[in-house]
């Protein structure tokens, strides 16, 4: 009794676990239950039960409700799908003028809107793409194909690669200095001589459209949310779900609305990239001291002047970090949206992975990673750059970068022109190095992979078998063995102990949604893979982070490494693991571990760093040893921040598990991938995405509530 009063929480947890395990043992596995592998929709199994809701028939295998809940939400995907189709094909038909056929045509409103958005996006992408690579479409957009036929000279010529490379270098120099400039030069030259110019520029044009649009939308919505509580409240749940929504899942409904191609990819990228931009804008604007706002008002600013001249410039740093985030998301999406037909490096990467040509995949992956790092560094440099005051500079000094760029353009054109005489065999290397004429190291890498396979086959296979048979399969079986009721009790109980009735209700709602969807089993598999990844990542991340923290320079070095790794588009992580482990669950899990270790390490170091120096000094003066200080002072104080790291680790792990569906898993991700190629997949894809998002949100809610209380208790921030 004494003990119980002293540690009430501990006993609550114990009680919860006892109930959980009692339920697990009390409820037997039904004899008919088996983990259902993929199953076609049209097969009618006489063993299935069914119900009809809103005119939709839902078929499912019925079990004891304590074991698995019936999929009462099974109608939801079908209903979403039907609503989408209704919107697109039947709702509000209107007369629209058709330019091409010169007549009025009846079309549903939504279809017309999406078609207009589509053609606008296509125009923007084509414009930038053709400035970089040359082409006809932009001119066609302003005239017509007939006119082009009559004027064969009318074509955008595209820029020689030398000019683009020089431009990037000069821009990098202006933003940050010699270091970044030489990196930019190396990246651009590498892309060119390895024959990746065309796909790289396609990807770049995609990003140059998607990133600014996401920025504008995110900024405006962020400002709107800052100005009006109502907008903020309306946006909040969407922002929350989008944070943990796997990017795959957004692809599917977008296909229905916008079709396939680069334009659809841009729209999806905006959907994914706008939420973090909104959050960071809001954060920046909230951080402005009220006195600065008052000073602006007292200076006689109108509302518009206050926004453009005071608020946005003062919140500049956070907003520009938002830009940086947007760029990162764009690169990630540049690869993923290759699934719906976006051109560029992502498409090549996907193709190479599909053919198991690891060498080619590696080259494309390296290229996209290098461009991502370059743009990341450039945008960060922009964020940290202060505007120089041009008080007493000469005209030349002020515009020297412009002069350099003009010189580069002239030189580039001259080079390309002379090149056209020098290279007679049809390829002007000073204009563009064609894909198959560049240097390729693909063969080398492929041979390397073969060599590794030949040499270490036995060991890799042994490790692989051990992991799958002795660790993963039992773990998976354990997860699937949980009766739905037991899981629900465990999750809701944890919610109650951590955050009281409110948290318990939120978590209960989220879990019920998944349990009542038709994919509870798949969700368990997703969770098991994520859990495994998170546990290993945390062990590695916390250890590495703690070790690196012991020394200032190694800590900074590690944070730098984390930065660079985080810049890689998530898909790229699949390449090396497929190289080593082929197409197995092991590959996915190792990719998950590598990817999720980044936030675990970063937050550990940051958390330990955030311990106030005064406390550090006080501890040292009390005569603690290094270990005592670590365990008695630094860990307890850094723990809340490290838990936020755990939160991020879970989100990263979930993302990677879902992406791992590409390799072949049996979880929710696999179904999302399937929905991609399904004509009626939109509803399924969206619902699956929400399921994954909810798994993330359950943990997010528990961890954040706990961290909030802990921080209050410790009196930090």
């Amino acid at each position: 009794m004494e003990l119980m009063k002293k540690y009430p929480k501990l006993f609550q947890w114990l009680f919860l676990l006892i109930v959980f395990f009692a339920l697990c043992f009390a409820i037997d596995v039904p004899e008919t239950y088996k983990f259902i592998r993929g199953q076609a929709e049209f097969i009618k199994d006489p063993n299935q039960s069914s119900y009809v809701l809103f005119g939709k028939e839902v078929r499912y295998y019925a079990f004891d409700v304590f074991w698995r809940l019936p999929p009462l939400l099974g109608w939801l995907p079908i209903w979403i799908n039907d609503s989408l189709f209704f919107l697109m094909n039947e709702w509000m038909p209107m007369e629209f003028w058709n330019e091409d056929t010169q007549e009025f045509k009846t079309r549903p409103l939504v279809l017309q809107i999406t078609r207009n958005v589509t053609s606008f996006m296509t125009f923007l992408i084509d414009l930038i793409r053709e400035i970089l690579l040359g082409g006809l479409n932009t001119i066609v957009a302003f005239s017509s194909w007939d006119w082009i036929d009559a004027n064969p000279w009318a074509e955008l010529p595209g820029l020689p690669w030398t000019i683009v490379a020089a431009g990037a270098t000069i821009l990098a120099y202006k933003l940050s200095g010699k270091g970044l400039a030489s990196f930019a030069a190396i990246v651009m030259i590498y892309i060119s001589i390895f024959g990746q110019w065309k796909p790289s520029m396609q990807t770049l044009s995609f990003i140059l459209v998607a990133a600014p649009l996401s920025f504008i939308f995110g900024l405006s919505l962020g400002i709107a949310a800052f100005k009006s509580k109502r907008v903020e409240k309306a946006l909040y749940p969407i922002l929350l779900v989008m944070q943990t929504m796997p990017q795959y899942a957004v692809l599917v409904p977008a296909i229905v609305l916008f079709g396939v191609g680069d334009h659809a990819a841009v729209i999806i990228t905006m959907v994914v990239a706008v939420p973090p931009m909104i959050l960071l804008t809001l954060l920046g604007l909230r951080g402005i001291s009220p006195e600065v706002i008052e000073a602006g008002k007292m200076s006689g600013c109108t509302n518009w002047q206050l926004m453009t001249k005071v608020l946005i410039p003062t919140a500049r740093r956070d907003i520009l970090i938002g830009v940086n985030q947007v760029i990162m998301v764009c690169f990630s999406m540049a690869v993923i949206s290759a699934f719906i037909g976006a051109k560029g490096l992502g498409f090549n990467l996907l193709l190479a992975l599909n053919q198991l040509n690891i060498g080619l995949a590696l080259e494309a992956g390296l290229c996209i990673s290098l461009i991502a790092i370059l743009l990341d560094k450039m945008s960060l440099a922009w964020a940290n750059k202060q505007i120089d005051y041009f008080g007493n500079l000469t005209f030349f000094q002020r515009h020297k970068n412009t002069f350099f760029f003009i010189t580069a353009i002239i030189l580039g054109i001259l080079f390309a022109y002379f090149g056209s005489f020098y290279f007679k065999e049809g390829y002007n290397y000073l204009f563009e190095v064609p894909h198959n004429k560049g240097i390729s190291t693909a063969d080398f890498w492929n041979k390397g992979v073969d060599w590794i396979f030949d040499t270490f086959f036995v060991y890799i296979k042994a490790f692989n078998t051990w992991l799958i048979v002795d660790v993963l399969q039992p773990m998976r079986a354990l997860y699937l063995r949980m009766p739905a009721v037991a899981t629900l009790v465990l999750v809701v109980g944890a919610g109650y102990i951590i955050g009281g009735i409110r948290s318990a209700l939120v978590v209960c709602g989220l879990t019920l949604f998944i349990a009542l969807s038709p994919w509870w089993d798949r969700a368990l598999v997703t969770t098991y893979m994520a859990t495994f990844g998170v546990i290993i990542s945390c062990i590695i991340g916390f250890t590495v982070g703690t070790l690196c923290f012991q020394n200032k320079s190694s800590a900074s070095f590690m944070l730098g490494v984390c930065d660079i790794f985080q810049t890689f588009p998530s898909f790229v992580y699949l390449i090396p693991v497929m190289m080593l482990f082929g197409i197995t669950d092991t590959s996915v899990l190792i990719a998950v571990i590598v990817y999720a270790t980044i936030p675990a390490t970063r937050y550990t170091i940051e958390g330990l760093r955030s311990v106030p120096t005064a406390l550090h000094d006080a501890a040292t003066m009390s005569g603690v040893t290094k270990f005592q200080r670590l365990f008695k002072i630094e860990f307890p104080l850094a723990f809340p921040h490290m838990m936020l790291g755990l939160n991020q680790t879970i989100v990263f792990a979930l993302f990677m598990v879902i992406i791992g569906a590409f390799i072949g898993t049996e979880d929710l991700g696999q179904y999302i991938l399937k929905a991609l190629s399904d004509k009626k997949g939109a509803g399924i894809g969206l619902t699956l995405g929400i399921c994954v998002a909810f798994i993330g949100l359950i943990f997010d809610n528990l961890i954040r509530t706990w961290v909030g209380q802990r921080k209050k208790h410790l009196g930090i921030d």
Partner: protein
Amino acid sequence: MSDPIIKCEGVYKIFGENAKKMLDESNGNVDAKTFQENGCIVGVNNASFEVSKGEMLVVMGLSGSGKSTLLRCISRLTDATGGKIFIEGQDLLQLNNKELIDLRRNKMGMVFQSFALLPHKTVVENIAFPLQVKGIKTEDSISKAMDMVKLVGLDGRENYFPRELSGGQQQRVGIARSLAVEPDIWFLDEPFSALDPLIRKEMQDEFLRLQEKLQKTIMFITHDFDEALKLADRIAIMKDGIIEQLDTPANIVLNPATEYVRKFTEEVPREKVLLIEDVMDGSTTDNLSDLKVSKDEIIEDVAEKILTQEKTVAVIDNNNEIIGSINPSKIINTVFGGRKK
């Protein structure tokens, strides 16, 4: 005396959802406690006063006393819940947005405790900012701002960014910015509170020098009683949103209206605040010493001279006429006597 520049009539500021309704129901009888029980917090409670042209009113109070809220009501950074505020006869609360912006662009300047400089602009750009939002051409506004830079003694640092300046220098920029549009009314919200004591004294002297030259109508907020005594023409002492006493420094020291005010004045060295006029005898005797002192002298400055005299000293006014006398013993009484309570 001309019309008051700032005039407040029964100004209330109450925070909370039902503030307006509760104020209407209370019939001007606002009790902080009953309001608080209903979820409202009283910021300013029935403030009425006038500030005339060229006068410096210092509002003194501890943190949470409502002094900053009062200032924000008068600059209409927040809207007062009840009462009337007139700026040069204009009803402030009736102004629409455009008129309010106009008023701020031409008549008002404000200095903030945390300086509130724009981090992305240089010193001269910060100072030119109010001119630029007014729509004045860049060159003109910069040249005007340069005059202000000189006025506050920051020449040579005009192209620095705020983060490159010390606190005192940053506040000089804040002062220059608030003066750039040549306002008639100058609001200062604890301008020197964030500064080190030595710098604070330097800035106070600088501020007095500027005021001597510019003769603005000033509302100055501070929590430092010594600062209030040093700068003020009149002082308003606030507690829990209520103005406890509003009077000249000398009267506040000599006749504290409430117990709360008396506590502040207890520790104040009287010889630094009181003038000869405040302690002299209205009558004269024949047996005067040769020394004559002006009635406007602060006691501290002439005490030594008076104390070396054996006879009573004559007090003269601006026209050199004798209007009273002061005995050395009176000085001793004033300096040492008042504190024995």
